Protein backbone atom coordinates (compact mmCIF):
# COMPACT_ATOMS: atom_id res chain seq x y z
CA UNK A 1 0.00 0.00 0.00
CA UNK A 2 0.94 3.63 -0.34
CA UNK A 3 0.86 6.71 1.76
CA UNK A 4 0.06 9.99 0.04
CA UNK A 5 0.91 13.30 1.74
CA UNK A 6 -0.79 16.39 0.36
CA UNK A 7 -0.11 19.94 1.48
CA UNK A 8 -2.52 22.56 0.18
CA UNK A 9 -4.06 25.78 1.37
CA UNK A 10 -7.11 25.32 3.60
CA UNK A 11 -9.21 27.26 1.13
CA UNK A 12 -8.76 24.53 -1.48
CA UNK A 13 -9.33 21.70 0.96
CA UNK A 14 -12.98 21.15 0.08
CA UNK A 15 -12.16 20.86 -3.61
CA UNK A 16 -9.36 18.42 -2.88
CA UNK A 17 -11.42 16.19 -0.61
CA UNK A 18 -14.16 16.06 -3.22
CA UNK A 19 -11.64 14.77 -5.75
CA UNK A 20 -10.32 12.20 -3.29
CA UNK A 21 -13.83 10.89 -2.77
CA UNK A 22 -14.41 10.75 -6.53
CA UNK A 23 -11.34 8.60 -6.97
CA UNK A 24 -12.63 6.41 -4.19
CA UNK A 25 -9.92 6.44 -1.54
CA UNK A 26 -10.78 4.24 1.45
CA UNK A 27 -10.37 7.17 3.85
CA UNK A 28 -8.27 10.22 4.60
CA UNK A 29 -7.07 12.30 7.52
CA UNK A 30 -6.83 16.07 7.55
CA UNK A 31 -4.64 18.19 9.72
CA UNK A 32 -5.49 21.87 9.44
CA UNK A 33 -3.64 24.93 10.77
CA UNK A 34 -0.38 23.79 9.19
CA UNK A 35 2.09 26.51 8.29
CA UNK A 36 5.13 26.43 6.07
CA UNK A 37 7.05 27.77 3.14
CA UNK A 38 6.78 26.56 -0.41
CA UNK A 39 8.51 26.81 -3.74
CA UNK A 40 7.35 30.37 -4.32
CA UNK A 41 8.92 31.45 -1.04
CA UNK A 42 5.57 32.48 0.41
CA UNK A 43 5.44 31.94 4.13
CA UNK A 44 2.16 30.67 5.52
CA UNK A 45 1.64 31.54 9.18
CA UNK A 46 -1.09 31.01 11.74
CA UNK A 47 -1.16 34.75 12.26
CA UNK A 48 -3.09 35.18 9.01
CA UNK A 49 -5.74 32.59 9.77
CA UNK A 50 -8.24 35.25 10.81
CA UNK A 51 -8.01 36.79 7.36
CA UNK A 52 -8.97 35.49 3.94
CA UNK A 53 -5.62 33.75 3.72
CA UNK A 54 -6.10 30.79 5.97
CA UNK A 55 -3.26 28.36 6.67
CA UNK A 56 -2.36 25.06 5.03
CA UNK A 57 -3.94 21.66 5.44
CA UNK A 58 -2.01 18.41 5.49
CA UNK A 59 -4.01 15.53 4.05
CA UNK A 60 -2.82 11.95 4.54
CA UNK A 61 -4.26 9.11 2.47
CA UNK A 62 -3.38 5.45 2.94
CA UNK A 63 -4.50 3.61 -0.17
CA UNK A 64 -3.72 0.89 -2.64
CA UNK A 65 -0.97 1.72 -5.13
CA UNK A 66 -3.46 1.18 -7.94
CA UNK A 67 -5.16 4.40 -6.94
CA UNK A 68 -2.06 6.52 -7.45
CA UNK A 69 -2.57 6.98 -11.15
CA UNK A 70 -6.17 8.22 -11.00
CA UNK A 71 -5.22 10.34 -7.99
CA UNK A 72 -2.41 11.97 -9.94
CA UNK A 73 -4.80 12.65 -12.82
CA UNK A 74 -7.33 14.32 -10.54
CA UNK A 75 -5.00 16.20 -8.24
CA UNK A 76 -2.19 17.49 -10.38
CA UNK A 77 -4.28 20.13 -12.19
CA UNK A 78 -5.52 21.33 -8.79
CA UNK A 79 -2.01 21.59 -7.41
CA UNK A 80 -0.86 23.35 -10.55
CA UNK A 81 -3.61 25.97 -10.26
CA UNK A 82 -3.57 26.61 -6.56
CA UNK A 83 -0.13 25.47 -5.45
CA UNK A 84 0.66 22.79 -2.91
CA UNK A 85 2.70 19.60 -3.01
CA UNK A 86 2.01 15.85 -3.09
CA UNK A 87 4.43 13.05 -2.14
CA UNK A 88 4.10 9.28 -2.07
CA UNK A 89 5.81 6.74 0.20
CA UNK A 90 5.43 3.06 0.91
CA UNK A 91 3.34 1.93 3.83
CA UNK A 92 1.70 -1.24 5.01
CA UNK A 93 -0.97 -1.93 7.60
CA UNK A 94 0.33 -2.81 11.05
Amino acid at each position, binding site marked *: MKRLDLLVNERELELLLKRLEQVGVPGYSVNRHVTGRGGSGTVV*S*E*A*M*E*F*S*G*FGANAHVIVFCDSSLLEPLAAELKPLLKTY*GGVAYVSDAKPL
Partner: protein
Amino acid sequence: MDTALVLQNLLSPAILFFFLGVFAVLLGSDLEIPAPLPKLFSLYLLLSIGFKGGVELQASGLGPDVLLTIGAALLMAVLVPLAAFALLRTQFDVFNAAALAGAYGSISAVTFITAESFLRVLQIPSDGYMVAALALMESPAIIVALLLVKLAAQDRGAAADTGWGSVLHEAFLNSSVFLLVGSLLIGLLVAQYSPSGIAKMEPFTGQLFYGALCFFLLDMGIVAAQRLADLKQAGAFLIGFSLLTPLVNASVGLGLASVLHLSQGNALLFMVLCASASYIAVPAAMRMTVPEANPSLYISSALGMTFPFNIIVGIPLYLSVIERVLPGASL
Protein backbone atom coordinates in the same frame (compact mmCIF):
# COMPACT_ATOMS: atom_id res chain seq x y z
CA MET B 1 -4.23 69.19 10.23
CA ASP B 2 -5.57 69.57 13.71
CA THR B 3 -2.88 68.48 16.20
CA ALA B 4 -5.38 67.98 18.99
CA LEU B 5 -7.32 65.50 16.87
CA VAL B 6 -4.15 63.69 15.89
CA LEU B 7 -3.04 63.35 19.49
CA GLN B 8 -6.50 62.34 20.61
CA ASN B 9 -6.36 59.52 18.09
CA LEU B 10 -2.72 58.54 18.62
CA LEU B 11 -3.14 58.33 22.37
CA SER B 12 -6.39 56.41 22.40
CA PRO B 13 -6.13 52.88 23.81
CA ALA B 14 -7.09 51.41 20.42
CA ILE B 15 -4.20 52.97 18.51
CA LEU B 16 -1.74 52.49 21.36
CA PHE B 17 -2.48 48.76 21.46
CA PHE B 18 -2.01 48.66 17.70
CA PHE B 19 1.43 50.22 18.18
CA LEU B 20 2.20 47.76 20.95
CA GLY B 21 1.66 44.95 18.46
CA VAL B 22 3.85 46.71 15.89
CA PHE B 23 6.65 47.16 18.43
CA ALA B 24 6.39 43.53 19.48
CA VAL B 25 7.39 42.55 15.95
CA LEU B 26 9.95 45.30 15.44
CA LEU B 27 11.70 44.52 18.72
CA GLY B 28 11.48 40.79 18.18
CA SER B 29 9.27 39.91 21.14
CA ASP B 30 7.66 36.49 20.97
CA LEU B 31 4.25 38.02 21.77
CA GLU B 32 1.58 36.42 19.62
CA ILE B 33 -2.17 36.04 19.77
CA PRO B 34 -2.44 32.38 18.83
CA ALA B 35 -5.03 31.22 16.31
CA PRO B 36 -8.02 31.10 16.49
CA LEU B 37 -8.21 33.93 19.02
CA PRO B 38 -7.93 36.68 16.39
CA LYS B 39 -10.81 34.98 14.59
CA LEU B 40 -12.86 35.06 17.78
CA PHE B 41 -12.38 38.80 18.01
CA SER B 42 -13.06 39.46 14.34
CA LEU B 43 -16.25 37.37 14.44
CA TYR B 44 -17.28 39.19 17.59
CA LEU B 45 -16.65 42.63 16.11
CA LEU B 46 -18.60 41.83 12.94
CA LEU B 47 -21.50 40.37 14.88
CA SER B 48 -21.62 43.35 17.24
CA ILE B 49 -21.28 46.08 14.64
CA GLY B 50 -23.89 44.36 12.48
CA PHE B 51 -26.35 43.91 15.31
CA LYS B 52 -26.02 47.47 16.60
CA GLY B 53 -26.20 48.85 13.06
CA GLY B 54 -29.39 46.91 12.44
CA VAL B 55 -30.97 48.23 15.61
CA GLU B 56 -30.12 51.80 14.65
CA LEU B 57 -31.16 51.29 11.03
CA GLN B 58 -34.58 50.24 12.22
CA ALA B 59 -34.78 53.46 14.22
CA SER B 60 -33.73 55.71 11.35
CA GLY B 61 -35.72 53.87 8.70
CA LEU B 62 -34.93 53.80 4.98
CA GLY B 63 -35.66 57.42 4.06
CA PRO B 64 -34.34 59.08 0.90
CA ASP B 65 -31.19 60.29 2.72
CA VAL B 66 -30.35 56.76 3.68
CA LEU B 67 -30.98 55.39 0.21
CA LEU B 68 -28.93 58.12 -1.43
CA THR B 69 -26.00 57.46 0.90
CA ILE B 70 -26.16 53.77 0.23
CA GLY B 71 -26.39 54.45 -3.50
CA ALA B 72 -23.27 56.60 -3.31
CA ALA B 73 -21.52 53.82 -1.40
CA LEU B 74 -22.38 51.31 -4.10
CA LEU B 75 -21.23 53.72 -6.79
CA MET B 76 -17.83 54.04 -5.10
CA ALA B 77 -17.62 50.27 -4.72
CA VAL B 78 -17.87 49.97 -8.51
CA LEU B 79 -15.91 53.03 -9.62
CA VAL B 80 -12.92 52.60 -7.33
CA PRO B 81 -11.90 49.16 -8.61
CA LEU B 82 -12.32 50.27 -12.23
CA ALA B 83 -10.14 53.33 -11.76
CA ALA B 84 -7.61 51.43 -9.67
CA PHE B 85 -7.40 48.69 -12.29
CA ALA B 86 -6.63 51.20 -15.05
CA LEU B 87 -3.80 52.62 -12.96
CA LEU B 88 -2.44 49.29 -11.73
CA ARG B 89 -2.33 47.78 -15.22
CA THR B 90 0.55 50.12 -15.99
CA GLN B 91 2.69 48.11 -13.56
CA PHE B 92 1.08 44.71 -13.01
CA ASP B 93 -0.38 41.91 -15.08
CA VAL B 94 -4.15 41.52 -15.37
CA PHE B 95 -4.43 39.17 -12.43
CA ASN B 96 -2.51 41.17 -9.88
CA ALA B 97 -4.05 44.42 -11.06
CA ALA B 98 -7.56 43.02 -10.73
CA ALA B 99 -6.93 41.52 -7.31
CA LEU B 100 -5.45 44.76 -5.98
CA ALA B 101 -8.31 46.73 -7.53
CA GLY B 102 -10.78 44.44 -5.78
CA ALA B 103 -9.10 44.93 -2.42
CA TYR B 104 -9.14 48.72 -2.70
CA GLY B 105 -12.69 48.85 -4.02
CA SER B 106 -13.94 46.89 -1.04
CA ILE B 107 -13.69 47.99 2.60
CA SER B 108 -12.12 47.15 5.95
CA ALA B 109 -14.65 46.72 8.72
CA VAL B 110 -12.05 47.22 11.44
CA THR B 111 -11.03 50.58 9.99
CA PHE B 112 -14.70 51.56 10.04
CA ILE B 113 -15.07 50.40 13.64
CA THR B 114 -11.99 52.32 14.70
CA ALA B 115 -13.35 55.47 13.08
CA GLU B 116 -16.68 54.99 14.80
CA SER B 117 -14.98 54.60 18.18
CA PHE B 118 -13.02 57.75 17.46
CA LEU B 119 -16.24 59.65 16.77
CA ARG B 120 -17.76 58.35 19.95
CA VAL B 121 -14.84 59.63 22.02
CA LEU B 122 -15.30 63.05 20.43
CA GLN B 123 -19.05 62.75 20.95
CA ILE B 124 -19.72 63.37 17.27
CA PRO B 125 -22.88 61.47 16.32
CA SER B 126 -23.13 59.18 13.31
CA ASP B 127 -25.94 57.03 11.98
CA GLY B 128 -26.50 53.30 12.20
CA TYR B 129 -27.35 53.08 8.53
CA MET B 130 -23.69 53.62 7.72
CA VAL B 131 -23.25 49.99 8.76
CA ALA B 132 -25.59 49.09 5.91
CA ALA B 133 -23.32 51.03 3.57
CA LEU B 134 -20.37 49.12 5.03
CA ALA B 135 -22.09 45.80 4.42
CA LEU B 136 -23.10 46.67 0.89
CA MET B 137 -19.65 47.91 -0.09
CA GLU B 138 -17.92 44.64 0.67
CA SER B 139 -19.06 42.57 -2.30
CA PRO B 140 -19.33 44.67 -5.49
CA ALA B 141 -15.59 45.10 -5.92
CA ILE B 142 -15.15 41.34 -5.85
CA ILE B 143 -17.51 41.01 -8.78
CA VAL B 144 -15.92 43.89 -10.66
CA ALA B 145 -12.48 42.36 -10.17
CA LEU B 146 -13.65 39.05 -11.56
CA LEU B 147 -15.35 40.73 -14.50
CA LEU B 148 -12.12 42.52 -15.30
CA VAL B 149 -10.21 39.26 -15.26
CA LYS B 150 -12.77 37.59 -17.48
CA LEU B 151 -12.69 40.44 -19.97
CA ALA B 152 -8.98 41.07 -20.01
CA ALA B 153 -7.72 37.49 -19.82
CA GLN B 154 -10.08 35.42 -21.88
CA ASP B 155 -7.57 32.70 -22.63
CA ARG B 156 -6.55 31.93 -19.10
CA GLY B 157 -7.31 28.21 -19.14
CA ALA B 158 -10.09 26.83 -17.02
CA ALA B 159 -7.95 25.96 -14.03
CA ALA B 160 -9.66 27.83 -11.22
CA ASP B 161 -13.28 27.53 -10.30
CA THR B 162 -14.41 30.79 -11.86
CA GLY B 163 -17.96 30.24 -13.03
CA TRP B 164 -20.34 33.03 -12.11
CA GLY B 165 -21.99 30.83 -9.55
CA SER B 166 -18.84 30.50 -7.56
CA VAL B 167 -17.94 34.16 -8.03
CA LEU B 168 -21.27 35.34 -6.67
CA HIS B 169 -20.90 32.80 -3.90
CA GLU B 170 -17.52 34.19 -2.93
CA ALA B 171 -18.86 37.74 -3.15
CA PHE B 172 -22.02 37.39 -1.12
CA LEU B 173 -21.63 34.34 1.07
CA ASN B 174 -18.06 34.61 2.29
CA SER B 175 -18.04 34.46 6.05
CA SER B 176 -17.42 38.12 6.88
CA VAL B 177 -20.08 39.47 4.49
CA PHE B 178 -22.52 36.81 5.62
CA LEU B 179 -22.01 37.43 9.34
CA LEU B 180 -22.18 41.20 9.00
CA VAL B 181 -25.33 41.21 6.84
CA GLY B 182 -26.93 38.49 8.93
CA SER B 183 -26.30 40.31 12.19
CA LEU B 184 -27.61 43.51 10.66
CA LEU B 185 -30.84 41.79 9.69
CA ILE B 186 -31.10 40.26 13.15
CA GLY B 187 -30.63 43.71 14.69
CA LEU B 188 -33.39 45.06 12.44
CA LEU B 189 -35.81 42.26 13.32
CA VAL B 190 -35.09 42.40 17.02
CA ALA B 191 -35.51 46.17 17.17
CA GLN B 192 -38.81 45.88 15.34
CA TYR B 193 -40.41 42.89 16.96
CA SER B 194 -38.58 41.97 20.14
CA PRO B 195 -36.99 45.16 21.50
CA SER B 196 -36.38 43.70 24.95
CA GLY B 197 -33.63 41.70 23.25
CA ILE B 198 -31.60 44.86 22.68
CA ALA B 199 -30.95 45.48 26.35
CA LYS B 200 -30.04 41.84 26.91
CA MET B 201 -27.43 41.99 24.16
CA GLU B 202 -26.01 45.33 25.28
CA PRO B 203 -23.36 44.17 27.77
CA PHE B 204 -22.00 41.78 25.14
CA THR B 205 -22.28 43.79 21.92
CA GLY B 206 -21.98 47.23 23.50
CA GLN B 207 -20.00 47.50 26.70
CA LEU B 208 -17.39 44.94 25.79
CA PHE B 209 -16.87 46.33 22.34
CA TYR B 210 -14.12 48.84 22.83
CA GLY B 211 -11.93 46.55 24.93
CA ALA B 212 -12.31 43.76 22.42
CA LEU B 213 -11.39 46.18 19.64
CA CYS B 214 -8.19 47.07 21.51
CA PHE B 215 -7.30 43.42 21.95
CA PHE B 216 -7.89 42.78 18.27
CA LEU B 217 -5.87 45.82 17.25
CA LEU B 218 -2.97 44.46 19.30
CA ASP B 219 -3.07 41.46 17.00
CA MET B 220 -3.56 43.63 13.92
CA GLY B 221 -0.43 45.53 14.89
CA ILE B 222 1.48 42.26 14.98
CA VAL B 223 0.28 41.04 11.59
CA ALA B 224 0.56 44.44 9.94
CA ALA B 225 4.17 44.71 11.04
CA GLN B 226 4.86 41.18 9.80
CA ARG B 227 3.39 42.14 6.43
CA LEU B 228 5.45 45.28 6.22
CA ALA B 229 8.54 43.19 5.54
CA ASP B 230 6.81 41.58 2.55
CA LEU B 231 5.85 44.94 1.22
CA LYS B 232 9.41 46.15 0.93
CA GLN B 233 9.98 43.52 -1.71
CA ALA B 234 6.91 44.64 -3.62
CA GLY B 235 8.60 47.87 -4.59
CA ALA B 236 8.06 51.60 -4.45
CA PHE B 237 5.10 51.76 -6.80
CA LEU B 238 2.90 49.57 -4.63
CA ILE B 239 3.93 51.39 -1.46
CA GLY B 240 3.03 54.69 -3.09
CA PHE B 241 -0.22 53.24 -4.35
CA SER B 242 -1.21 51.97 -0.91
CA LEU B 243 -0.65 55.39 0.64
CA LEU B 244 -2.08 57.62 -2.08
CA THR B 245 -5.16 55.56 -2.93
CA PRO B 246 -6.77 56.15 0.46
CA LEU B 247 -6.16 59.89 0.11
CA VAL B 248 -7.61 60.05 -3.38
CA ASN B 249 -10.59 57.87 -2.54
CA ALA B 250 -11.24 59.78 0.67
CA SER B 251 -11.27 63.02 -1.32
CA VAL B 252 -13.80 61.68 -3.78
CA GLY B 253 -15.77 60.42 -0.80
CA LEU B 254 -15.64 63.86 0.76
CA GLY B 255 -17.01 65.36 -2.45
CA LEU B 256 -19.91 62.95 -2.46
CA ALA B 257 -20.52 63.49 1.26
CA SER B 258 -20.67 67.21 0.65
CA VAL B 259 -23.12 66.82 -2.25
CA LEU B 260 -25.29 64.54 -0.12
CA HIS B 261 -25.12 66.88 2.89
CA LEU B 262 -23.98 64.11 5.18
CA SER B 263 -23.44 64.99 8.82
CA GLN B 264 -19.81 65.27 9.95
CA GLY B 265 -19.88 61.86 11.58
CA ASN B 266 -21.43 60.13 8.60
CA ALA B 267 -19.06 61.96 6.27
CA LEU B 268 -16.07 60.60 8.19
CA LEU B 269 -17.41 57.06 8.06
CA PHE B 270 -18.12 57.43 4.35
CA MET B 271 -14.61 58.70 3.66
CA VAL B 272 -13.14 55.84 5.67
CA LEU B 273 -15.17 53.31 3.71
CA CYS B 274 -13.88 54.77 0.45
CA ALA B 275 -10.31 54.99 1.73
CA SER B 276 -10.00 51.54 3.27
CA ALA B 277 -9.02 48.30 1.57
CA SER B 278 -10.14 44.76 2.28
CA TYR B 279 -7.82 42.16 3.76
CA ILE B 280 -10.45 39.61 4.72
CA ALA B 281 -13.33 39.19 2.27
CA VAL B 282 -11.46 40.08 -0.93
CA PRO B 283 -8.31 38.00 -0.38
CA ALA B 284 -10.55 35.07 0.51
CA ALA B 285 -12.36 35.46 -2.80
CA MET B 286 -9.32 36.26 -4.93
CA ARG B 287 -7.31 33.32 -3.74
CA MET B 288 -10.02 31.02 -5.11
CA THR B 289 -11.07 32.83 -8.25
CA VAL B 290 -7.85 34.55 -9.34
CA PRO B 291 -5.19 32.11 -8.11
CA GLU B 292 -2.79 33.59 -10.66
CA ALA B 293 -2.45 36.76 -8.57
CA ASN B 294 0.26 36.90 -5.92
CA PRO B 295 -1.53 37.10 -2.57
CA SER B 296 1.34 38.77 -0.81
CA LEU B 297 0.90 41.80 -3.06
CA TYR B 298 -2.72 42.50 -2.26
CA ILE B 299 -2.79 41.41 1.33
CA SER B 300 0.45 43.12 2.28
CA SER B 301 -0.48 46.45 0.77
CA ALA B 302 -3.99 46.42 2.25
CA LEU B 303 -2.98 45.13 5.67
CA GLY B 304 0.60 46.28 6.06
CA MET B 305 0.25 49.80 4.69
CA THR B 306 -3.24 51.08 3.97
CA PHE B 307 -4.78 49.81 7.18
CA PRO B 308 -2.19 51.37 9.52
CA PHE B 309 -2.16 54.55 7.45
CA ASN B 310 -5.92 54.93 7.76
CA ILE B 311 -6.22 54.26 11.46
CA ILE B 312 -3.16 56.26 12.49
CA VAL B 313 -3.08 59.18 10.06
CA GLY B 314 -6.19 58.93 7.95
CA ILE B 315 -8.98 59.11 10.48
CA PRO B 316 -7.89 62.32 12.24
CA LEU B 317 -6.80 63.82 8.93
CA TYR B 318 -10.14 63.18 7.26
CA LEU B 319 -12.00 64.57 10.24
CA SER B 320 -9.95 67.75 10.37
CA VAL B 321 -10.65 68.29 6.66
CA ILE B 322 -14.35 67.65 7.23
CA GLU B 323 -14.38 70.22 10.01
CA ARG B 324 -13.06 72.79 7.54
CA VAL B 325 -14.98 71.79 4.45
CA LEU B 326 -18.31 70.79 5.95
CA PRO B 327 -18.43 73.14 8.92
CA GLY B 328 -22.14 73.78 8.60
CA ALA B 329 -22.94 70.13 8.13
CA SER B 330 -25.76 69.04 10.35
CA LEU B 331 -24.39 67.31 13.39
